């Protein structure tokens, strides 16, 4: 992809100031809740106190009678269902006939201020007929009658999605294996926890154009769904994503508030804002699916994986969200970095009366990765093979195909393993760590976007437009959503690399559906590869035009002109140079206005020809290895993670510290899921959230978070811009099982259920102690006597 005549890597891989960070740090960037429009009203949503109930009637009159109340909307105003996945439109902006979880939206009211809107919500009278609620996915799946069907649009009872795929003769290979490890794993629910709550503002312009500003990571999909539900032509709607305060998958589909502010603005003729409370964010959820996973893995004596058999129940909550994809991902994304001899997965997603689950960083594949990497660790112990060596022996390699027929390009997994092994002192230190201290390793892979978009079409997956102006600057227009991951800066780095401009001379305008070309959004780690390629396409076309015009005036061949350092330079006579402004002016004189578009479409030959065979196929895969060091306090059950080493193959780091930040942030998030975080509702309290606050939902603080040593590995991929692959989600996965495996190494207990809370650690220690006393197990490893006394 990179062309030969640019000044190589004058920007790539360096440390950059982000294009938009300083305004955020000075407090002047306008996030969605920072917008204030003349005459703006404030809206609030009345939410269901029941987990499952029919709505017999709604009396709005007492609310509408309050002074300062302007308008109210209910499910009757939004009868067209929507869903981020076009095959499963199974939710309405507000409940139409019934509510399906505590927190389901019922009425939205716009008033002069928030206090008045809240008072009006209290005044509404809703007549509910409570229905039997289901909180256990298996119990929900057992029900097939209409009465017990949770989702009003479901045609298969409470089965939201079922996938069964088999590659090779799994049962025969299991029977022929030297060792079969069986394990039951439970991944509890976790949520995104972005610090910015969801917020949306709508305005109907005098021209009749509806503008919606929203804290979304998918402005294009929001645009489509608004058009559908509001029955407006898309060109009458403009969606703008202002600076965004974190997302992690939690803002990757439309939410009730966007439809409500739009409709209320249309009804009142005034701008309307709605900001979720933190409690509402927890009920909006769309977080990581709880999964119950049953694994059987067959190995040869020397540790090769002959067969993997997985059965998974996914607890989906009340709506589909991305659940169709999640169900596939729970099996499809497991087939690297290790070669499987044979593979079968059987995954069922259930509807339950809980806030819907959806995509959280590492969508669908973090849970099975947890199970798989512990299975490998158990096999390593049983076979007496070093856990890193066992993983090396199963490495799938580069330029190959997985058992489920995905084509893998570059692969830096072995280097990732080598880097964490060396940095942690694994070889020298592991055997010497006494009882209570341990090291654990795990590996993983992730997609750099998906080859097929959410709605089927043959158009490019990404488009970028770049304009150069006479002052020597560039403006980049992109529909991509910068959600803090730095995608705007990524675009600036590529433009800078190609056109020789410093980052500060480049303006990136993004995520405005009126100004920018369509982009599908910030999900599935697609932006660097896809939007980066589109940007490279546009920028390199402009570079050629500029170089040609300079070369013409210097009477030299085009490839002698390079663009770098805000100049055009003669490669063979570096004293000859002009500044970028002069070069651009010559090019504009020759070519007319300087603008180019670039687009990127995915390769369509990297998947299997079977139903579901495209889901999980990606242009390129990233690879990660985590190595965790822990200390387990056997008296309190507290696991102290001392340090995590992470090596991540991102293909090519376009901006060094930004990539490191993604690796560190991902690993931190996995650490939190491993030890602290638990998102769930309480059946004893009729399905209310167990603790919808950032105090009860325990995200790690500065003091909780271990030292994180991020190492960048670069195995450039032919499909990535300059070889780049993803870095934003892959480095979460193996963080969790690496900690689990380190706990085993420390004290000899297997924690097959997250989070690894002190009561679970103590219970597992007591069970081990019981088995040691019964003579079933010998002591785990030597160490100071006091360390094991109370175990």
């Amino acid at each position, binding site marked *: 992809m990179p062309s030969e005549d640019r000044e190589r890597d004058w920007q790539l891989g360096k440390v950059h100031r982000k294009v938009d960070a300083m305004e955020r740090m000075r*407090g*002047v960037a306008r*996030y969605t809740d920072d917008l204030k429009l003349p005459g703006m009203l404030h809206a609030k949503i009345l939410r269901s106190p029941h987990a499952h109930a029919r709505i017999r009637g709604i009396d709005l009159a007492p609310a509408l009678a309050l002074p300062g109340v302007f308008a109210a909307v209910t499910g009757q105003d939004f009868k067209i269902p929507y869903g981020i996945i076009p095959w499963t439109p199974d939710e309405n902006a507000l409940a139409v006939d019934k509510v399906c979880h505590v927190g389901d939206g019922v009425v939205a009211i716009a008033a002069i201020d928030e206090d008045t809107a809240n008072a009006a919500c209290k005044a509404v009278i809703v007549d509910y007929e409570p229905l039997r609620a289901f909180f256990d996915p298996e119990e929900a799946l057992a029900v097939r009658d209409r009465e017990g069907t949770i989702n009003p649009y479901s045609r298969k009872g409470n089965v939201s999605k079922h996938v069964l795929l088999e590659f090779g003769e799994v049962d025969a290979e299991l029977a022929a294996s030297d060792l079969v490890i069986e394990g039951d794993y439970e991944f509890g629910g976790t949520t995104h926890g*972005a610090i910015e709550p969801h917020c949306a503002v709508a305005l109907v312009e005098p021209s009749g154009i509806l503008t919606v500003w929203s804290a979304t990571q998918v402005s294009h999909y929001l645009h489509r769904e608004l058009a559908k539900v509001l029955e407006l032509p898309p060109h009458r709607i403009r969606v703008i994503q202002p600076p965004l305060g974190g997302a992690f998958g939690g803002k990757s589909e439309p939410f009730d508030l966007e439809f409500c502010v739009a409709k209320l603005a249309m009804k009142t003729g005034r701008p309307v804002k709605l900001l979720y409370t933190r409690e509402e964010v927890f009920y909006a959820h769309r977080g990581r699916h709880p999964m119950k996973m049953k694994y059987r893995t067959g190995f040869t004596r020397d540790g090769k994986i002959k067969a993997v058999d997985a059965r998974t129940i996914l607890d989906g909550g009340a709506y589909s969200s991305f659940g169709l994809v999640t169900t596939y991902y729970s099996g499809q994304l497991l087939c690297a970095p290790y070669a499987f001899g044979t593979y079968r997965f059987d995954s069922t997603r259930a509807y339950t009366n809980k806030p819907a689950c959806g995509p959280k960083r590492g969508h669908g594949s973090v849970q099975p990765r947890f199970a798989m990497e512990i299975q490998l660790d158990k096999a390593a112990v049983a076979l007496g093979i070093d856990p890193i060596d066992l993983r090396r022996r199963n490495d799938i390699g580069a330029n190959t195909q997985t058992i489920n027929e995905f084509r893998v390009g570059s692969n830096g997994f072995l280097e990732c393993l080598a880097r964490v092994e060396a940095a942690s002192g694994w070889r020298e230190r592991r055997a010497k760590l006494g009882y209570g201290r341990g090291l654990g390793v795990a590996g993983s892979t992730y997609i750099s976007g998906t080859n097929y978009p959410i709605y089927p079409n043959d158009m490019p997956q990404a488009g970028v437009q770049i304009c150069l102006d006479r002052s020597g600057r560039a403006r980049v227009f992109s529909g991509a959503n910068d959600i803090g991951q730095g995608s705007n800066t990524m675009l600036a780095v590529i433009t800078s690399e190609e056109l020789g401009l410093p980052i500060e001379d480049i303006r990136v305008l993004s995520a405005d559906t009126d100004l920018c070309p369509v982009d599908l959004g910030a999900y599935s780690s697609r932006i660097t590869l896809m939007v980066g390629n589109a940007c490279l396409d546009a920028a390199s076309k402009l570079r050629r035009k500029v170089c040609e015009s300079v070369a013409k005036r210097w009477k030299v061949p085009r490839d002698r002109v390079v663009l770098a350092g805000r100049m055009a330079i003669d490669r063979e006579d570096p004293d000859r140079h002009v500044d970028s402004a002069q070069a651009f002016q010559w090019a504009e004189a020759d070519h007319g206005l300087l603008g180019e578009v670039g687009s990127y479409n995915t390769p369509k030959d990297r998947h299997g020809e079977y139903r579901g065979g495209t889901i999980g196929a990606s242009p390129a895969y990233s690879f990660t290895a985590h190595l965790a060091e822990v200390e387990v306090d056997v008296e309190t059950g507290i696991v102290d993670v001392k340090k995590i080493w992470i090596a991540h193959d991102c293909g090519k780091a376009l901006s060094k*510290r930004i990539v490191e930040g993604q690796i560190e942030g991902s690993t931190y998030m996995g650490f939190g899921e491993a030890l602290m975080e638990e998102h769930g509702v309480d059946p004893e309290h009729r399905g209310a959230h167990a603790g919808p*606050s950032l105090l009860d939902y325990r995200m790690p603080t500065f003091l909780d978070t271990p030292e994180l040593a991020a190492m960048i590995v670069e195995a450039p991929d032919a499909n990535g811009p300059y070889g780049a692959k993803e870095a934003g989600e892959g480095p979460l996965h193996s963080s969790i099982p690496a900690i689990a495996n380190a706990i085993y190494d420390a004290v000899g207990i297997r924690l097959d259920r997250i989070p690894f809370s002190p009561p679970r650690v103590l219970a597992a220690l007591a069970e081990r102690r019981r088995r040691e006393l019964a003579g079933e197990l010998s002591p785990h490893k030597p160490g100071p006597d006091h360390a094991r006394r109370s175990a």
Partner: protein
Amino acid sequence: MSHLLLSMTVNGEAVQVAAPAHHTLLEVLRYKLDLIGTKQGCDKGDCGACTVQIDGVPQLSCLTLAVHAVGRAVTTVEGLGQQAGGCHPLQDAFDRWNAAQCGFCTPGILLSAEALLRRCAGREPTRLQVCEALAGNLCRCTGYTKIIDAVLDVGRQMAVAAAASAGEVAHAE
């Protein structure tokens, strides 16, 4: 709703603002004074995004009634750069270290960090001191690593500058 007329100093400027008695300092700063740099993340004192300084001490503005700030000096992130003539060294270091990803928690963290460095008075803070001072501020993006790097970087610079100026004083004597 009856309003009170509140007088306080905000970022060095005397202001008078009318607000209902039950409104928090956060509401008054954000929605009355348009100082949008102070963020609301949870509105119940859990996340630290709304941290401001009152008389130099970090406080959660979402748990502080606006009347509590009457007659006192409030500093928000907008005032932080102002004090330092445009860009505070912490802001510059955060920018260099990519310590802000989404940036939503950053204003609160900057105000907690500034108070720490002031308390250190030219002594370099330890990593643990930084973590303790910032433990009330949640960040969901960074894993905290780059933030710690940035604060330690400024702490080191300030310690070097303090030592140099102490040296100059000694030399002059």
